[in-house]
């Protein structure tokens, strides 16, 4: 069973319109690398030198990865990864 990544609305044109992309479970950075290989432009928007950009927040099963193991966080079968802009709130 794959894991899934939720794509923000404004970037769905880069995933052929898909709101959700299925990926192999594994460590988050491998999963993001896989995503970037399949959708290079999406990878460019989200990552800088292979790391999430400063204003990109990533959640695994609703938890901010900065409270988990960052890009080393494991993503299991059926788990959902959510990508959101970091500049909301306040």
């Amino acid at each position, binding site marked *: 069973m794959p894991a899934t990544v939720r794509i923000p*609305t404004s970037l769905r044109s880069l995933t052929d319109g898909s709101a959700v992309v299925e990926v192999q479970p594994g460590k988050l950075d491998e999963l993001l690398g896989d995503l970037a290989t399949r959708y290079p432009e999406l990878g460019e928007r989200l990552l800088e030198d292979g790391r999430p950009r400063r204003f990109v927040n990533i959640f695994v099963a609703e938890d*901010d990865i900065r409270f988990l193991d960052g890009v080393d966080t494991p993503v299991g079968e059926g788990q959902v990864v959510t990508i959101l802009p970091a500049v909301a709130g306040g």
Partner: protein
Amino acid sequence: MAFAESLICRECSRTYELGPLYYCEHCFGPLEVAYDTEAVSANVSREKIAAGPPTLWRYADLLPVEPTTATDLGAGFTPLVRADRLAAELGLGELWLKNDSLNPTNSFKDRPVTVAVAKALEFGLKTVACASTGNLANSVAAHAARAGLTSFVFVPHDIEPSKIVATAALGTVVRVDGSYDDVNRLCAQLNEEYSWGIVNVNLRPYYAEGSKTLAFETAEQLGWELPDHVVIPVASGALLTKIAKGFRELVDVGLVEPGRTVRVSGAQAEGCSPVATAFAEGTDEVRPQRPDTIAKSLAIGDPADGFYSLREVRDSGGAVAAVTDTEIVEAMRTLARTEGILTEPAGGVTVASLAKLAREGRMNRSERVVAYITGHGLKTPEVFDPGSLEVIPATIGGFQSVYETKE
């Protein structure tokens, strides 16, 4: 009229048409409103402002929306009071308090909200929403009601009950099982699914501009002079960055003389101090925290403008203090006792931080200091327990049996 031209990314400077957008599609950086500064300069004047209404709409030329009465509950133009008794107690020289608890819903949030809801009307949106620690929810619900819009306000389940009670009379309060940061994530996700105006999500560029008016008023009330040093509570950091921006804009459009840099300092509770921690560690990486403090209105563990707040503070020679819950409550009492102003814990954070910055020598007695009191004490009545006050007979003797004073 409004002189806003476009939205511009703070990181990569890409521009976007004015719309309900808040982040750059290319680098995820925050979008900010860009103005035709020449046109603003040509139109704005001290006299025109003085002839305007006694609300923040007197600065309409510097805001990103056409002035409107549709969302006007009277936000802004709150008192700036000289606070000599508090200054003496804290060992400061010239101290002023901007008492923004005297806004229509008793917090500074009415400033960004009146602007954001006006923008929601311009964009033809029917529903407004927000992620809130309480004060914003109150303000959004009130301004939406005034504007005839539907509102959904999302709050963490454990905020002060009094804040929910007041707000529930005005709109739909949605209590969320989680922290503010969970609520914030939820609202960013809802923004993907609903065509709402979420004031601090997709309307955030316009919303945040409303807070600049605190800088405009401060300068106008000081006789069109800039203060030397300001102390501002930091939750998301948007208030701090926008007050700093407001002071710069006054110089840019010719309303105040250039040449003086305002030192900008931040105030946080120790129980939620991501920006103060980064400041103390000398890093520009603001690591998120799980908040645990009495100052619930400042309990944002992952501040959206933490990075930019640090930059404003460092570039201006300010500092960021962090104070304990005990210091916060003590400072609330000190403010009440010395100046007659009852504030919520956020104001206690500011006053306790003033005291700390003074003790640490980060503030000197020759500076003209302004501190921002952003929310009212009646919003958090549970902080002060009056205990059991004795009931006296309605006679002079009854009074004298309990109170010995002759003065």
